[in-house]
């Protein structure tokens, strides 16, 4: 297993007017080249922070992160990122918003426009490509921001709750689509989600984080066979994984009923 992302004893403290906030405490883990890796954890545990650290957008306060063997001093090459908020630019149409990653990277315009249109079509936004962001529903905006991250076919894809604003069915649909995309080119994906089922369905391994200052509690390998169909969710192996992770959550004392 070749490590794509290596995280060693990484900690992150935000300094702030009201005193520092420890967001990550001593996180260590590896993501293998071509692996689909999910992060699960209670709200506020530091998932987004960890993703931003991997992306080189935030520096770690302690420890080190290496991507493809290189220490980070800014975002590494070949990265694509879906932010938790959609971050669409009001002055651009949806198509132009998707194309901006290509523009940033200086890729040929005509070719990328064709790709972008195709992507938007596949994500159900074909009819909306010339509209502005404020004319779209929340889920549509989120889909547009996913298209934007996929456009340049990044080798490492960081996704922060990309399907959070989608209904169950559209979500299933896009889960399938994402698996297809991942399998066709074997990208490395680090995926933050709050759906246990989604994590199990998509991932090679699922990391469970603890609340408070974030820590990795356990990394669960998902040994379900691939390619996986949606129907795999009805299998007992699937249920076993879900139950196991649910148990981890319960152990963290999050479900109170």
């Amino acid at each position, binding site marked *: 297993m070749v490590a794509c992302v290596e995280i060693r004893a990484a900690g992150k403290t935000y300094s702030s007017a009201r005193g520092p906030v420890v967001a990550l405490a001593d996180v260590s883990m590896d993501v293998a080249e071509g692996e689909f890796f999910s992060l699960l954890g209670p709200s506020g545990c530091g998932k987004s922070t960890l993703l931003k650290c991997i992306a080189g*957008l935030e520096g770690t306060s302690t420890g080190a992160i290496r991507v493809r063997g290189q220490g980070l001093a800014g975002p590494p090459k070949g990265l694509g*990122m879906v*932010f938790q908020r959609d971050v669409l630019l*009001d*002055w651009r149409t949806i198509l132009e918003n998707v194309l*901006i990653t290509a523009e940033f990277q200086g890729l040929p315009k005509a070719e990328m426009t064709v790709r972008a249109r195709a992507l938007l079509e596949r994500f159900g936004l074909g009819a909306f490509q010339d509209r502005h962001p404020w004319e779209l529903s929340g889920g549509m905006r989120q889909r547009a921001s996913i298209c934007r991250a996929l456009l*340049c076919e990044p080798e490492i894809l960081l996704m922060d709750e990309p399907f959070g604003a989608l209904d169950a069915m559209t979500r299933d649909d896009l889960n399938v689509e994402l698996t297809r995309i991942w399998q066709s080119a074997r990208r490395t994906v680090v995926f933050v989600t709050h759906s246990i089922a989604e994590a199990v369905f998509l991932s090679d391994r699922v990391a469970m984080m603890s609340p408070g200052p974030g820590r990795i509690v356990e990394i669960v390998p998902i040994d379900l066979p691939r390619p996986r169909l949606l129907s795999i969710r009805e299998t007992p192996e699937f249920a076993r994984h879900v139950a196991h992770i649910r148990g981890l959550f319960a152990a963290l004392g999050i479900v109170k009923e």
Partner: protein
Amino acid sequence: MMGLWSGSAGLRSTLAVLIGVVLLWEAAVWLLAPPPIILPPPSRIWVDFIEAPSYFLRNSWYTLSTTLVGFVLSVVLGVGLAVAIVNSRLAERIIYTLLVALNSLPKVALAPLFVIWMGTGIEPKIAIAVMLAIFSIVVDTVLGLRSVDPDAIALARVNHASPLKILVKIRFPNALPSLFVGMKVAISFALVGAIVGEFVAGSAGLGFVILVAQGQFDTSRVFVALVLLGLLGTILFYIVEAIERLVLPWHVSQRAVERPGGH
């Protein structure tokens, strides 16, 4: 459609306001009868204009061209300076400090120096127009360039966008609404700057017309020039606003205008 309609309604109400002011003024002069050397009635001003329209229009044109050159220069220079300020702490200190100090000096007091250095041609007038207009451009643009969603910058950094691309594709469009505010303030001040320049040196333009008329205590001619200046300023301002509406249909401040009231 909507835009056009609101445009012509805007024009109509602007005209209505102006006509109202003129009528009030005329009535006030009739009632209070101030000496004409102090405040002539609009009717008298109109007569004076109509006696020599080409004289006034020629000089308005001269002032207008100085104003436009000064305005364009201050937008170009001002945006450049704002970019420098946002990119470097050192540039911020140097430019801001000099600009603020310079802007605190009354141009009428500096004008003689300008004339001594630059002569009595169009240069000192343009220089004064730029000095008056550039400040609001810089300060407004700096706010606009700085008020960018940090996540948008993160998006650019993840995609290894060059600083230039971040500027052109994120910061600058984001700063446009602020820049337009700066421009609306600046266009007025560029006009005032051109006039102040003409006061100090020059033999053409509405500022010159005012001076000559003042020298003869020809107050109604002074007012012809002042009214023309007011009109010129208003027209230029609304032109900048019209361009703003064209360029920024995406901004909330414009969207709010397009759909007033809700329901």
